[in-house]
Structures are given as C-alpha cells and as structure tokens.
C-alpha cells in the first residue's frame, strides 16, 4: 500500500501456481519492492486483499508462514469473477497486494497447550500456516490433532503436505470425506462426526476451526458437548469484505468490522454479538 | 369508502381468508399516506383511502407469494397486477383484490399535499380497476381504456434530436443511481438486475452521466409494453428526473406498433414476451 493512499496496492509478481484440487489452486506471489518484501510480516489468520487488475479485488487469507523475502501463498477457490481471473493468470503477471489486515490466531498465548484443528475444504487455507507454525516450533506446543475434511477425496486440500504433517512428532492427522470414490479406502464421515469419534479431551486444549458455515455450526455443537468452553474454541468469521480498512462498512457486525477487529474470534466473543447468523 | 374498506378487511382477516391486508394509512406528516400491512382484525381502523393514496402497492405481492393477501388497488395499480398475473409472478387464487373506484390522486410529497390532481390523473379515463374481487365506490357511467393521448410525448418528439439529446443529458447528470425507480416498480422484479451483473458488466458501479443514461434507457426498454403508468418511479426520484416521460414514449411506440397497452386484462401477454412464428423475420429459413 502506498502511505499516500491506503487503497493503492503493493505490486507483486505471480511466481507459481499449483493445482491443489479441481477448484482450488495455490498461488505463490513475490512482492516486487525489496524493502516492502523485507518488512512484510504477518501472522496466521491475517489476510490480504489481492487485485486482479482490471477485474477487481477480493480478500484472501495468507496460507503461508511469514518470513522475510518469503513467497506469499494463497489458496484460491474458483467461485466468482476475481477468483476465476486469478486462477487463469500466467506466472510473471502483476498482481496487487493490500495488507496484511486483520487480527491473527492467538498461538503465542496458547503455548504449552494441545491444539485441535478442524478444517473443511477451503477452510484449511488459514489453518495451514497455524499447523506449519506449530510444526516449526514443535516443542512450544502439546499434542497436535488435525481433522481435514472435504466433499470428496479429490477436494482434500494440501495433499502434498499430509505426509509431513502425519509424520511429525506428537501429531495426528485424520482425513475424512463426505463421499468416497472408487479408490478411497479412508474414512467417510462428516467432520462433526469425526470430532465425536476422536473424543479429544478439552483439558489444556484449544480448538481452532474453519470451514463452511454449516460444518462450523455442527462442529461447535459437538465441541461443546465434549466440554469445550466457548473461550477454548477459535474460528474465523466470514462476512463479505471490500476495502479491508474498516471504511466501507460492508463487513460491519455489531460494533466490529470483521476486516479490522477480526476475522479471528473466539466463540465466546461471537456469542456476545448482538446479531447472530 | 373507508368504512367499506375497513369492514371488508376485518371480514377477510377474521375469517382467515387472508393473512394480511395491504392498504394505506396516514403518514407522519399528518397529511400524506403510506403503505400499511394489517395482520390483525383490530388494526383495520388504521386503513384510509383518499386522494393522497398514490402508492402502487402491487409490488409487495411479490414478497408475499406463499401467503394469501388482500390488496387495495386503484385502476392503474390493477394494470400492474394484471401484468404480474400475465407474467406468472403471482397466483390469482392467492390474491384478494379490493378494487377502489379512484377519484384521482393529488400531488404529494412528505409534508406537501396539494389540491392539484397529478397530470397522469388528469388524463385518466379509467377510474374503475380492471380486475377485482370486491369493488368499493360507484363506477362512473362511461369508462374508456387508458388515455391514448400522448401530448407530452409528442411535444418532446417534435423537438430536434439535438434538443432532445441535450434535455436527457441534463437529466442524467443528476441521477445518483439510487435505483429507487427500480425498487418501487412492479415491472422490475428480476432477481439479478442487469446493472448488478458482473460478467458481462453492462453498466458497472460508476455514477456518471454516460452510465446513468444507459441505466435509464435500458430500464425503459425493459418496461416497453409492460409499464402500467403508475408513476411511482417519477414520484420517488430524489432529483426529479421525468422518468414517466421516457416510459410513456415507449408505451406510445408499443401501442402504435402492436396496438397493445400493458395490464388491460389478466390474460393478455405483453408483445415482447410473445413469440409468433409468423412474425419471424426469415432468419434461419
């Protein structure tokens, strides 16, 4: 962003595109200006607003872990005009980046705890840097239990990383799909049912979940039944965002703007909003 | 008249024939009117009917498709209702039409109620609604189809192209694309209006004279053969653009070309919603 005008994006170049699922691609961007690049740091949960110039802008959570001179990675699901346009870009094309915006998952505050991650579909995107941050600082955290769900086996996100996750010490990766296919020998169950099956103890644990609204709703129910308190459950709130700066008021819910005060909230915070969705 | 309306509304609500009666009540300025939705028989005394009841309530039927609703209509409103029946947007069995013989509406804005009849009412020769289940008021002896005089349109047509261009450019400059004209229009019910489409983007979000002109022109074309002349669009425009003039121009064209005026019967289908093989222009033959 230009300090003169917060609506002006940083220029970045698309470096590579990896197809993750039929609908989702992982885009790797590098910021052009070396000073901006060196100073661009962010935490898991934060997002940026990406510009497909000539088409428009949309918010995307950062799916990479922050490092100086590191590539910014975004998992983009083809669903509208901006996402379709971004997915079709050739490496070498200019893309705009505004951010980083929003708050982040409170990993520092939860060192020493067990972390229970529950993700569905594209919801795995903000959870991936959480997982990778924990794995890079393994001794700072207790057990890591991950549920990664999708509609079908092809739609499971971040498959190239499953082996690394599953083989990390003290880490358990549980995959599940809503519908199997001919080659699938794994679990076929909805994500909330897997929460019940795994029956983790809420003792010294926080749960972080992200996925389709309906998955989150039922996951919350099951977590609460297991004894998780609302302040132990963390999620990201989905509202349409436009400016990312707390100006256009589109993401306003109660006295908060999701782009400025969120998107990460505990269930306790969300339960206090005057408007419930 | 008001007593008859209230009595009928009470009867319909008590008998649970309808879930709601849509009519009019007094507005907060104590002079003009506003729409009223009555759900309980005890509330029917709020219903009024006088020369300030200019609003076309027919559009609200589109929010009430699942329920049975009674609605107060004047003759112009009944044409809009017929349009929605023609286009299969509402079911006849779900609407109880309380038709009111209209004395003509006066010019009103909030806190400004005049004694002057609206220009469209001065021209109107059809005071009895064209479709109703229950009629309030005495129909006048002779009624004629809506006015075929388009003196205001003819006056504009007589000007040179350059003069007309200048006039409409001036109007477009003031438009703020609030879409109030669209929101109140019974003919504008598309779930995604062409202005909201992104692929392709016909108009976009820029609020500027060129885009405003496209907005107004295309909306007028989408209403050709469908506009009932209720004048709601012009009434609500915050910057007083003479939208009715544009709509009436197309109304005149359709009448001259197809001998058709919108909403005169519940069965007729608008010309642009009709395909007759004999009208094919030889394309593909």
């Amino acid at each position: 962003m230009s300090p003169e005008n917060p609506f002006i994006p940083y220029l970045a170049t698309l470096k590579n595109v990896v197809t993750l699922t039929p609908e989702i691609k992982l885009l790797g961007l590098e910021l052009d200006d070396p000073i901006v690049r060196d100073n661009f740091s962010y935490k898991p949960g934060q997002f940026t607003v990406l510009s497909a110039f000539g088409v428009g802008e949309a918010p995307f959570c950062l799916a990479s872990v922050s490092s100086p001179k590191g590539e910014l990675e975004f998992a983009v699901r083809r669903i509208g005009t901006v996402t379709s346009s971004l997915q079709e870009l050739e490496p070498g094309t200019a893309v705009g980046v505004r951010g980083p915006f929003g708050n982040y998952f409170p990993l520092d505050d939860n060192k020493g705890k067990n972390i229970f991650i529950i993700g569905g579909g594209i919801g795995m995107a903000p959870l991936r840097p959480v997982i990778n941050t924990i794995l890079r600082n393994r001794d700072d955290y207790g057990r890591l239990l991950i549920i990664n769900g999708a509609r079908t086996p092809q739609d499971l996100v971040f498959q190239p990383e499953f082996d690394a996750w599953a083989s990390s010490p003290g880490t358990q990766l549980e995959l599940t799909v809503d519908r199997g296919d001919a080659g699938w020998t794994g679990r076929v169950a909805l994500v909330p049912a897997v929460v019940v099956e795994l029956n983790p103890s809420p003792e010294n644990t926080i749960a972080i979940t992200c996925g389709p609204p309906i998955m989150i709703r039922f996951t919350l129910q099951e977590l609460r039944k297991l004894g998780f308190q609302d302040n132990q459950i963390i999620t990201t709130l989905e509202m349409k965002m436009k400016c990312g700066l707390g100006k256009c008021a589109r993401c306003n819910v109660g006295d908060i703007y999701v782009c400025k005060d969120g998107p990460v909230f505990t269930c306790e915070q969300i339960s206090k909003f005057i408007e419930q969705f | 008249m008001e007593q008859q309306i209230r009595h009928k509304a009470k009867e319909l609500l008590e008998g649970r024939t309808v879930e709601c009666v849509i009519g009019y009540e007094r507005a907060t300025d104590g002079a003009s009117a506003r729409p009223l939705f009555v759900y309980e028989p005890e509330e029917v005394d709020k219903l009024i009917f006088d020369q300030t009841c200019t609003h076309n309530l027919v559009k609200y039927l589109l929010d009430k498709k699942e329920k049975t609703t009674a609605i107060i209509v004047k003759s112009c409103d009944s044409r809009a209702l017929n349009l929605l029946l023609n286009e299969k947007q509402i079911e006849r069995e779900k609407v109880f039409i309380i038709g009111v013989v209209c004395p003509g509406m006066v010019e009103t804005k909030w806190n400004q109620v005049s004694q002057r009849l609206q220009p469209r009412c001065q021209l109107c020769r059809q005071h009895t609604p064209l479709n109703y289940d229950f009629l309030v008021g005495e129909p006048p002896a002779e009624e004629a189809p809506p006015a075929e005089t388009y003196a205001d349109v003819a006056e504009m047509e007589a000007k040179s192209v350059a003069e007309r261009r200048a006039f409409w450019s001036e109007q477009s400059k003031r438009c703020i694309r609030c879409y109030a004209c669209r929101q109140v229009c019974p003919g504008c019910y598309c779930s995604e209006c062409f202005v909201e489409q992104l692929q392709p983007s016909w108009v976009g979000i820029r609020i500027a004279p060129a885009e405003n002109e496209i907005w107004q022109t295309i909306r007028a074309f989408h209403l050709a053969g469908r506009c009932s002349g209720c004048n709601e669009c012009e009434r609500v425009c915050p910057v007083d653009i003479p939208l009715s003039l544009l709509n009436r121009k197309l109304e005149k064209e359709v009448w001259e070309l197809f001998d058709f005026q919108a909403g005169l019967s519940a069965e007729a289908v608008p010309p642009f919603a009709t395909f007759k093989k004999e009208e094919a222009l030889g394309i593909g033959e």
Partner: protein
Amino acid sequence: MTQTISRKNLLAWLSRLLEHRLLIAPTHTAEPILFRPVSKVEDIIFDFDNTAISPKEWFFPATETLFWAETTDGRIELVPATLEREAVIFGLRPCDAKGLALIDKAFLAEPADTLYQQHRDKTVLVGLSCRKAYPQCFCTSMGTAPDDPSYVDILLTQVEEDYIVQIITQKGKALLPDNLLVKSEVVAPPPPSPSVIPAEGIEEVMRQVFDSPYWSRLADRCVHCNLCAYVCPTCYCFDIRDYESKGKIERVRSWESCQSPGFTRQAGGYDPRAGKAARLRQRFYHKLLYFPESFGAIACVGCGRCVMVCPVNIDIRELIADIQKIGGPNVP
C-alpha cells in the same frame, strides 16, 4: 459585540473567491436545490431549508477514482488520484457540517482515507445558520443546533440585510479578510426550535430490542431503494470495482448502501442478511448503536432528509419514539 458583513460585501467577497477557487453553493438544478459549483454569485440561493442531497457528495463523491493502473513496456504502474482544486462550500447548515465531522471519525481513523482527507483539507466550510426550523428537522435531539458553530470554519447568521460573522478556525480566518467586517451591536436572534424527539438513552434501548418483531413489521413496507443512505449526511458505505478502457485500468469507488439486496452476499451465494428485516435493522443499528459504540456519537444529525425522501415514510423520528416505547426504561 459581534462582527458583521453586509449582504453586498458578502456577495463581493464570494465573487472574488470565485476567481481562484471552486465555489460550491446551494443552487437550482432544473428542480431540486443541490450544492453545485456556481459561476456567478447570482446563482446562489440564500432562502432554502436544505438541499435534496447532503453536501457530503463534495467530500465523498458518489463516484471517485482511487487510482489508475497503466502498463508501459509490460510494466504496470499505479498512479494515485489526487485532488488539485481549492474550494469553498458556502451555505452549509450546521447539521450537515456535523455530518462531515461524523464521517471524519470513520474515514480519518487509521489508516486514513487520504482522498477524503484531501477533499476536507482543500475545502473551506462557510456555514449558514438556520433562521427557521422546518417540519422535518430535529437537530437539537441529535447533539447539534441551528446555530452550532462547532464544525465549520466560518459561521454566518443572517440578521435582516447583514450577516453576523463568526470566524471559527484559522482556515476561516485566512479566507475572510478583516477589512470586510464591521464591528456591530447587532445580536443574533434566538435560534429556532426544531421539534424534539426522545433520543435520550436510545443506544441502551436499542440493545434490548434487537429481536423484536418491530423490525420485520417495519420492513414490510421498505422497498430497499438506497434513498435514505444516499441523501444522508452521515452514511458512508461504498463499493469498489475496476474498469478497463484502452489498456488503462481505473479502480473506482461508488456509493452503496446496506439496504441494497445483495450487499452482504458472498461469492458462492451465501448471504447472512438476505432478508428485508435484517437489512433494514442493520441501518438503524449502525446509526444508533454500532457507530456510537465505535466512535462515541450517534450517526444522525437530525437533518430530516431521510424522512422527506423515503417513498414509504419510514421515519426515524417515529422509529426512535416507538423503540423507546417497546424497550425503554418504563417497560416492565
């Protein structure tokens, strides 16, 4: 002791300003009175209640380019929009000036909207006190007054053929030379009294009535036309989109409002505020509860434009009185 300027000198001063700046004042535009640039002072209307659309359009235009993206030799360059002109806005009512101060709280909060800031910095506000209270006005219930000098650079109050001049800020002082002012014994008459509405404690009451059926009853007649938000001095929602023409890309922002169907619709189709009642409720909650919670003031200045313009007479004054009855302290 006050300072005054005669009508004649006022017009002469405004004419001189015209030579170097944009002079924006209430003027006829075919029908409604709007704030528009005037080319001669004779076009200024002095006797009016208020303009159909608030003057926020001169600080937060209905459409505004944020930047251009130009491609030269395969490299893209972003060119920010800047505002060059210096302007004076004349005839601003105190309620509208307060409206700008409220928008400031949102737009100038970190990170500041620099385009809006340029508009504010490069425009001098010359206010005109109201001599009459109009039926739609209720400014005193919203924390301002017909003669409130707090939010303008210069405030003029007409007394017969002269105007009492209050210079409020340095910006105002720099604009109006002392030699046009005359010391006087003239005293301003008491300001008019607009109607009063029971807005006291409305925030707390709003907290109680969120789930009331009142909202869906009210929403029955709302047609979601955006008018209330567009004429309002304090509404500020906008949309952003890109346009491409002849290889040049323009990023534009335009007014939008929370009343539009689809305002909160996400890609993929899910819309948390799809229903009419939820959208209608959002506007009043933003104005009467959320904005005060975030920025410390009710986002309404009592200008009454929404009351006049609503096609179905949704009247915020009636609403506030109704809400107090449903949820106020006297309810058991």
